[in-house]
């Protein structure tokens, strides 16, 4: 099958506000995709369109090979979704809600359900209306994975979970990917968490795709240089095209660069400076990707 989510010139407007602006995107199969973006970048809109909750204004979005407006039970039973605000039936108990959902899915896995209830420490006899935000998130997650989806969409799934449960949840998601060869798209602003499990990054900004690439490729395309000149011979501005950002003084500067073969030596010689190159973390990369795009406009 082609990519589980493919969009062409996908646009979504809400009245005068444009949430997504002519997006061309192919989500690769079997990846754990991190959907990054600032508030209002269009992450939730994209996920809602992908699962058919919201329809495109213009352009197209195909999920599991089917235009989203025609999604039917054949596709929907392969789809798992955890929305940002959980839509749960308040008067049911946890156990009842699980049984209710299970009835819709022929492939419902009761063993996985039990395992997850235990692993995420969710009490099965509690009323949903009385659950904490974190417990509601846990239930939404369990509800979304027990039918062995081949595409799992998670909108800020871990924001209310404590660090221990968050770690377990992410480990579990990886095991789902392993067992079911599932594609996972996960939007989150907790970047340090994501770094551990994602291997593909889609970065949205103001309704446009800034970057869609493998995480390791992005990590290797940028670096941080700590440049030290004992003589104080560093300039106020660096003219080299590979220097993206720069802060510091004549003695020491911190640069964000696009590293390349054989650029360090001449640079070091030109400024009589010592260069120490370090990789950038996802948290440092994120503003860089967004600002770079904004500067291009």
């Amino acid at each position, binding site marked *: 099958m082609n990519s589980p989510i493919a969009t062409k010139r996908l646009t979504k407007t809400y009245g005068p506000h444009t949430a997504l602006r002519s997006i061309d995107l192919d989500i690769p199969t079997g990846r754990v995709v991190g959907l990054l973006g600032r508030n209002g970048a269009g992450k939730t809109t994209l996920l809602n369109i992908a699962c058919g909750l919201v329809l495109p204004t213009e352009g197209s979005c195909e999920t599991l090979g089917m235009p989203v407006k025609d999604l039917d039970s054949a596709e929907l039973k392969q789809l798992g979704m955890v929305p940002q605000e959980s839509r749960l039936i308040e008067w049911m108990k946890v156990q009842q809600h699980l049984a209710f959902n299970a009835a819709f899915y022929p492939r419902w896995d009761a063993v996985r359900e039990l395992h997850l209830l235990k692993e995420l420490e969710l009490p099965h006899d509690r009323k949903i209306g009385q659950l904490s935000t974190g417990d509601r998130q846990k239930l939404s997650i369990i509800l979304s994975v027990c039918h062995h989806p081949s595409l799992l969409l998670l909108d800020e799934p871990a924001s209310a979970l404590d660090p221990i449960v968050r770690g377990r949840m992410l480990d579990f998601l*990886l095991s789902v990917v*392993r067992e079911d060869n599932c594609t996972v798209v996960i939007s989150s602003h907790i970047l340090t968490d994501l770094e551990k*499990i994602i*291997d593909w990054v889609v970065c949205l900004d103001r309704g446009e795709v800034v970057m869609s690439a493998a995480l*390791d490729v992005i990590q290797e395309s940028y670096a941080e240089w700590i440049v030290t000149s*004992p003589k104080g011979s560093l300039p106020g501005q660096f003219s080299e095209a590979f220097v993206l950002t720069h802060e510091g003084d004549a003695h020491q500067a911190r640069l964000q660069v696009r590293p390349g073969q054989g650029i360090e030596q001449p640079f070091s010689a030109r400024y009589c400076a*010592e260069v*120490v190159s370090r*990789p950038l*973390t996802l948290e440092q990369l994120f503003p860089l990707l967004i600002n770079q795009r904004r500067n291009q406009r």
Partner: protein
Amino acid sequence: MLFVIDHHSGVPSYRQIMDQIKFQIASGALAANAELPSTRALSAKLSLNQMTISKAYSLLERDGVLERRRGQTLVVRALAEGALTITKIDQLRQSLVAGASAARQLGIPPGEALRVFRDMLNEPKDTRIHELPHRHQAAH
């Protein structure tokens, strides 16, 4: 075989695995013909995507460090004695880059720096480091 992956270092995980396998081969911890864990088993153990593991393995295979045997098992390729020495020196050189850079920044002449290194090799390891609170241990 133990791998320690630092998810927040910014170094791609596949690269960390590659470096650690190379190091273990150079140090003799992984002998020639030793079998590597399957991508599936290792991905479960390290909580990493299988693709990350297979990327590391296939790059090592391309570099001639590992080779695939009949069936699917991946083993450490037997290296000539000379080749192994080069690998060891490469490993050492990599870990000294930061030290050399610090020496230049501090203006310590090469002779002096060499003396420090020689002393470090001869002396037992400075144990004061272990008295510092260990961030990673505290997290567990």
